[in-house]
Structure formats: C-alpha cells, structure tokens
C-alpha cells in the first residue's frame, strides 16, 4: 500500500488530494472534480513533466535557444534529460518546432526548438 498527499495543479483551486494505492487500485479523495482524480492517479503511478530549457546556439543575436520536450517526460528522468540537453550545440538558423533531440533518453519524446532564431 502506498499513500501520498498532494495538491492538485490542474486548476487554480488547488485541492488537497489524498491518493492511495491498494493492490492494483488507486483511490483519490479530496478532489472536487474528475480532472483532479485523473491527475492524482497519474501523479502517483507515473508523474511526468514537460521540460523546458535552453541549448547553446552559434551565429545568432542571442547565445541560447529555448527548447521544450514535446510531451511530458517521467519525473525521475529529468536530470538525465537535462544532461543530454546540455550536450547539444546548434548553429543558426533554427526554425520553431525543429527537432533538436529525437527520443530523448528513450522516453519516446522529442525535444524541439521553441522559437526561430
């Protein structure tokens, strides 16, 4: 059995959730809506985050290019992902949406440029 208190971040109300795993079932209490329930289950079983950062870019008016993961990556892989992101160096021009890293750390998620430069 696993139990965790968390604050739902789906909307500004910020419900205080209690999420409990009994055998295969995850039970969420404290939520005021269904979205809170979905959030609680995901947060206990497989919490993910969209990661945003920058990579080095040459020949541009700025020295950093902002990037983001196209979807959520597992929370426990964030520091490995950041390491890989930090090893990248690009040359301008770069287009918004251009893939910077394919399938980062085997998560199935691509890293893309979040602006043109």
């Amino acid at each position, binding site marked *: 059995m696993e139990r965790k208190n968390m604050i739902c971040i789906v909307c500004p109300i910020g419900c205080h959730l209690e999420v409990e795993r009994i055998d295969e079932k995850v039970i969420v209490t404290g939520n005021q809506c269904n979205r809170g329930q979905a959030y609680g289950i995901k947060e206990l079983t497989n919490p993910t985050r969209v990661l945003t*950062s920058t990579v080095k870019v040459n020949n541009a008016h700025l020295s950093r290019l902002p990037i983001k993961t196209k979807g959520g990556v597992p929370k426990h892989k964030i520091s490995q992902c950041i390491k890989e992101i930090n090893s990248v160096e690009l040359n301008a021009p770069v287009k918004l949406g251009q893939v910077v890293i394919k399938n980062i750390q085997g998560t199935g998620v691509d890293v893309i440029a*979040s602006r043109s430069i």
Partner: protein
Amino acid sequence: MLNYDIVVIGGGPAGLAAAIEAKKSGIDSILVIDRDRELGGILQQCIHNGFGLHEFKEELTGPEYAERFIEQLKELDIECKLDTMVIDITQDRLIHAINTEDGYMTIQAKAIVLAMGCRERTRGAIAIPGSRPAGIFTAGTAQRYINMEGYMVGKKVFILGSGDIGLIMARRLILEGAEVSAVAEVMPYSGGLTRNIVQCLEDFNIPLLLSHTIVDIKGKDKIEGVVLSKVDSHRKPIAGTEKYFECDTLLLSVGLIPENELSKSAGIEMDPATNGPIVNESMETTVEGIFACGNVVHVHDLVDYVSQESRRAGSNAAKYVKDMLIRNGSTLQARPGDGVGYIVPQIIRTDNLEKNLDLFMRVKNVYSHGKLVIRVDGVPVREIKKKHMAPGEMERIKLDLELLKDKNDSILSVEVEKEVV
C-alpha cells in the same frame, strides 16, 4: 516629422495584439515602436510553458506564444521600429523617439496605444538593510541572463519573494546546476500560482518559508549570505528568530510596477491602486486618443488576458481614428468595495459596449467559499460564488450590458462577501 494614424509604444504581447487588431479593424497606417532589438517583450525570456491555454487551448512557452503574434504582424505588413526608445509623448499625441539609424525623431499620431509593460521592484523599492555587495539581482534580470544571453548568475542562491517569476527561477536554477536554499515570503501566503509552487518548489524539495523576511545582507564586495527572520502579523521581524543562510546570489521576486513615465509626462491620470493609467471601457486613458493595455495598465498574471484586453485597445483606437467612439453618453464609475484591491476599467461609458463588459480585479486576501457581489448605486445586480480567491490570481467578470443600461452618473462597485457556512 513622421505621421501615422496609430502608433503603438511597446512590442510585447500587448502591443502586438493591439496593432494586429487595429489593422484588422481597417487602419493601414500603423507603427509599432520597441526599444529592444526584437519583438515579443518579456515573453522572449519566459522559456517555461503554460502560456496560451485560453488563447490557443495549448500550453505554449513564452517565445512560442510571441512568435505566433509576430508572424501575424508580419503577414499583415505592419511597420515596426526596433532598437527605438520613446522618450516623451505629449497630450496632443506627438511622440519623441530616438534610435541610431534615424537619430532623434518626432512622430505625430492620430491615436496612441501605450503598451510599455512593467518592470520589477528592486532592492531599493523594498528597502532591505545591510551592505551593498554584488550578486543581488531581480529574478527577471537573472531570467534574461540565463535564458537569452547564456550567463549563469551563481551557484548557491537564496530567493526572496514567492511571486511566479521567483518560483519559476528557483526551478530554472536547479536545472542549470545551482543550489537553491529556500524561497522566503513576507506574507503568510504565496504570491504565486499553486501550480508553480508544486512544479517549481515541491518537485525539487525547495523549502518555502512563509512569514519570513531578510533583515540583513552580509558580504562586502560579493554577497556571502543573508539573515532571515520570522515576521509577526504586522510584517515586523520578530527578534530572536534570526537565521543565517550562506549564498553567493540573492534573487528578488517582490512584485512588478507598471512602467508609466511616458503616461505621466502626457498628463494622463493614474490610479494609485494599480499604478497604471485610469482607463475606460475602450481602454482609453483620461487623455483623448491615448489608449493603454497590458501590464502598463495593471499587472496581469496570464498573458492570455493581456492579449484579450489589448485587442480591445486596438479596435477602439481604430474606432477613435474613424471618429466612432461615443464621448458623452451615460457613464458609470467602477469602485473597489470591501476586500477588493482595484477594478479595471475605472470608467464605463455604456454606449460604447457591444454586449458585455469585462471587469478585471484583484482581491486583497485569500478567501475560500466567498462571493463577489456587484452593485450599481448600492443595489446588487449580480453575485458570483467563488470556491477560491487569492491576491495572486486576477479575477475576471463578464457583465451583461443589460445590467448597466440607462445608468448614468452611477457607481458600480464590487466587494467580497464571505459565505456563511
């Protein structure tokens, strides 16, 4: 001297949305001026996601959100002057500006839209005692250094103030390899959105110390540490609660102030509660033909609302140029009641409204299960129940025009009522 129908000062999200809307409303002669080397304003340094949920139903990063508007501006062939600083504007809409290409220039506009955004409060604004070493930044300055220019600001960081920019920078610094000892906040509640407290602090085990402030800064040339103290309910430090935190960098995230030097020099009347110009339903200031929108009017927490409000400024500036705004119809004044800090717009000329009136406001305290009561001349016209209200979260109310019809010289007020449970 140059001549334009509409000149927009500031090319951030507010200026972009206003210019685009003015063009779509049929005005061709438009100029956007920005002192930065590119358009997009503050959004270019806000590389985190969470922008555009209302506008595009997607979670975009700041630069992505900006790029969508910049592309539209280009498609509509709207003229811009970058690297250009506006230094003065007058009541009769003469603009004085300067850049290295044209030198000093004067521009006559039929209408002006002010969209200069806001700036951060600094150490001076909150008067922290102690020595004055290097290593103290506003959170936004650090954001620009790290995210755009590629400079790291420090290794061991303390953050004062729990506004959203400070919270977001706490996470950013950790991802860049720094250590963040804590975020301290003088109020008993955070000034930032809950989602940011969870994603930026709790995810990385950064403590949030509420009801705490810095009482001393140590270090001569470079900052070496800060002394933190608990505060009582009057925000006075409690003797004996001091605690020392070693750090090489202090970030301040202690609030934003609308950037209104230009507005003041044009003689525009200001609202002391917002630090921005007093505006009417059309986002026109108290000087005819000068409009304002975005953070220059009041500090917004979501850029989506900035874009919305700014489109209103743009389309009404266009109406003004075409002489379609009604000046002397029935008018209401909006006044914040109990528990409400401010209301924008402050003046409502009902004849210029199409269907609804959008009111923006902030409450002064954290309330759970309260309601907002809207009154016209003391008579309640609408009540809105709210499960949760906080000063960090702007409230928006859409009022049906029917409720305001035929009211002249009236007072519209909004107040918070605690629900009796």
